[in-house]
């Protein structure tokens, strides 16, 4: 025990300690709150870079150099002082050095943010707003705690069958990210799709002021980012800032999200696996080869098939179909567009290896509704042995225990044959949920996700389905 504590203490004096600090700052997108939470929870500073490595961006290099300069200046100054005044200061500075570095590096970060970054961002965003105001395209905005990127990609794929469409790449959903994307537009786009990111109250309103959407989609409300919002009411209010902005304009809301449904207003169009607007949905079916359903309205019937997996995808697909039709696409174009939709990177993306094991990479799905949908999908698979691998979900705030117990309970009810848990602060709650629901399968534990991934090829056989649920960035414990 003493040996362990000593090892932890001296890990702050390793040469890679400054690099570890900068790495976590980078991993948390320079979110000081997230960085400080990690710092306060961390005792062992060895092997901080587990999932990824520090990327030497100009910002990271500057901070790293400043961190080392701070260390050298502190030690040098103390040595000079000690030579003339006595050595009693040196041990104190040595003792405090790791803490001074951890907090000291935030000073240039904060100064740069307010003196350089913010003013620069202000001008970039102002230019983008002006440019977008004169752009003729129909603007569709998507907000929600989960499923935004999937909705964006579905909509983009379907609308592209009949319109010139553009959307920011990756998860560019902040004012700066969207503004940079706006600079790349050539002006002839007919439809623009924006994903609106939310971290704090007021975020969506700010983005609406920038984007000025004509159509809105709310994909759902849940506990994602609850650590920052504190209450689900605040999350709901923030996401529905999009509805506030649109007023009477066309607003789609995911009816399968309980919280979103609870905030519905007159005139909103709900979508789910049974209907969207005036369309009724029939014959839903899903499997490892995709999802099929039929949309019927009056005399019009569309038999649709997508490579996306899970019945929960029917709602977003149907909403995209309805939006596309409202933008002037024909039913044939919509059918073709839906057929072109396929699983996106790390979002229930199936891969079959040479051993005949199907891996469903859902590592970008880290929200309770997504987990519920995926477990429902696993339940629908017959004749397969199923493996559920997860490090749990991050940023669940005060709901952490409840959310993870619920995951355990659902896994037990779905009779998933094998559950692999990665040791951290939240997975014990999943184990408790499994136990409380009398889970009869096998639970295996691994110290980190990489060890679990390495073991999986040795644990699985032909026909097995392995679900990789969520990622666990290094800044979380």
């Amino acid at each position, binding site marked *: 025990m003493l040996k362990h504590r000593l090892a932890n203490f001296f890990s702050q004096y390793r040469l890679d300690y400054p690099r570890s600090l900068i790495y976590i700052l980078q991993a948390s997108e320079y979110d000081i709150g997230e960085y400080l939470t990690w710092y306060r929870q961390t005792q062992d500073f060895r092997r901080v870079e587990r999932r990824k490595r520090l990327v030497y961006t100009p910002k990271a290099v500057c901070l790293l150099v400043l961190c080392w300069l701070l260390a050298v200046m502190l030690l040098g100054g103390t040595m000079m002082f000690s030579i003339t005044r006595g050595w009693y200061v040196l041990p104190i500075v040595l003792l405090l050095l790791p803490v001074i570095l951890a907090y000291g590096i935030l000073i240039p970060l904060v100064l740069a943010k307010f003196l350089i970054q913010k003013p620069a961002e202000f001008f970039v965003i102002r230019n983008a707003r002006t440019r977008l105001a004169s752009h003729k395209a129909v603007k569709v905005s998507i907000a929600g705690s989960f499923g935004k990127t999937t909705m964006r990609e579905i909509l983009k794929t379907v609308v592209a069958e009949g319109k010139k469409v553009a959307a920011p790449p990756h998860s560019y959903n902040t004012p700066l990210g969207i503004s940079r994307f706006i600079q790349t537009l050539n002006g002839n786009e007919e439809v623009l799709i924006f994903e609106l990111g939310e971290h704090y109250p007021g975020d969506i309103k700010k983005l609406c002021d920038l984007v000025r959407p004509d159509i809105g989609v709310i994909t759902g409300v849940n506990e994602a980012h609850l650590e920052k919002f504190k209450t689900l009411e605040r999350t709901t209010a923030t996401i529905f800032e999009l509805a506030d902005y649109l007023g009477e304009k066309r607003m789609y809301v995911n009816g399968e999200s309980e919280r979103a449904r609870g905030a519905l207003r007159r005139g909103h169009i709900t979508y789910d696996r049974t209907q969207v607007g005036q369309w009724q949905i029939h014959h839903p079916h899903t499997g490892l080869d995709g999802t099929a359903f039929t949309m019927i309205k009056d005399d019009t019937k569309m038999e649709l098939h997508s490579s996306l997996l899970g019945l929960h995808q029917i709602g977003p697909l149907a909403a995209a179909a309805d939006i596309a039709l409202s933008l002037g696409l024909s039913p044939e174009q919509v059918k073709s567009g839906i057929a072109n939709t396929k699983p996106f990177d790390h979002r229930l993306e199936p891969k079959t*290896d*040479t*051993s*005949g*094991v199907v891996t469903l990479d859902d590592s970008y799905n880290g929200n309770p509704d997504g987990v519920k949908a995926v477990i429902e999908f696993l339940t629908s698979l017959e004749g397969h042995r199923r493996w559920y691998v997860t490090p749990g979900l991050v940023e669940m705030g005060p709901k952490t225990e409840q959310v993870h117990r619920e995951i355990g309970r659902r896994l037990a009810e779905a009779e998933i044959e094998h559950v692999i848990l990665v040791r951290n602060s939240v997975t014990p709650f999943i184990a408790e949920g499994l136990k409380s629901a009398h889970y009869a399968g096998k639970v*295996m*534990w691994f110290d980190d996700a990489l060890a679990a991934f*390495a*073991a999986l*090829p*040795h*644990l*699985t*056989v*032909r*026909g097995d389905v392995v679900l990789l649920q969520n990622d666990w960035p290094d800044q979380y414990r």
Partner: protein
Amino acid sequence: MKTVAVFFGGRSSEHDVSIITAHTPIIESLLATGEYDVWPVYIAKDGSWYADKAMNNIAYFKQDGWETKIAAQKKVQILFDNGLTLVWPGLMQKTVRMDIAFPAMHGTYGEDGSLMGLLRMANVPFVGCDIFASAVAMDKALTKQVLAAEGVPIVPFVWFTKHDWEQNTDELKEKIVRLRWPLFVKPVHLGSSIAIAKVKDEPQLENAIEVALHYDDKVLVEESVENLIEVTLPIMGNDEPRPAGIERPFNKAEFYDFNDKYLSGNKTGGGVNSQYSEIPAQIDAELAKQVEDFGTRTYRVLGCTGIARVDFLIESERKQVYVNEVNTLPGSLYAHNWKTVGISSVELVQKLVAFAEERFAAHQNLTYTFDSDILKKAGIPKSPGGTA
């Protein structure tokens, strides 16, 4: 937690293949269970023994200069004291006692029974075939002689030693000429298809024999099976052998050589090529039944235990099945094949460990020594210090 020593490397042409087998799947699967303390025991090409847990990661053997790095390490010694103990000698001597040995050595000094003899002497349970099956299976000619005596179909062949060839070339050539050509020339002790050649005329034959005798001192020449379908059948178990899937390699060359087996696979194939084979082999049901029957019979006749793989040659037009050879340590345990019949690598190594313990327990019940008065009765003088 049981302590397992995985032996690999060795003074064999299949040294590198052994490193792959040891790690994928053996060490990685043992570690994945979380139930074993795994000690990798690496035997270098010069015969030196090393054991270091850093070698549990195959990346160790992919780094530049790994052989030099290993050579700088302290060599490990083996202590037999009614069990197997690894000893790192020195002032701070360290010892670790092993509960189970898991041989992962292909070819000479490993798969040929040598290591099994050592482990029997140590009185430690060990995975895989015992010394007798290993020694016979290592000699392709001897295997065929044993199988032929038991009525298992094999391809007609002629065998000879280097000395025989040098002394009686004409006589042997006469015998060989009577076989139906084309022929295969094979060193009898080497695995992984090393130095095997198909010959169609006498100059090719002499050249192939010269090459084969460069690698081995005993060679066999056998008839080539035309309209050939090659299949292989991994089998595991002690008294009740259980076959895996019948596997058919897709040959790019005329026969399944070393490169096909180990070097042309993909990243996820686990060492042995899975991209170029079909499991289960799409062959006639009657042929498949014969393969399973002859396979399990061969396994029993040779006294195999734990795991082995029986290779077959099928004359597809005449529907004639021949047992070609037996491999007592299939590369990477043919884990890719076991997966297709529902046995994961982890389950495979766990079963093999259980088979090893079962066989060991059975051996413990056998009586090997008994008291006798033969020394008293023998007409030898009593000790010089005794009274006359």
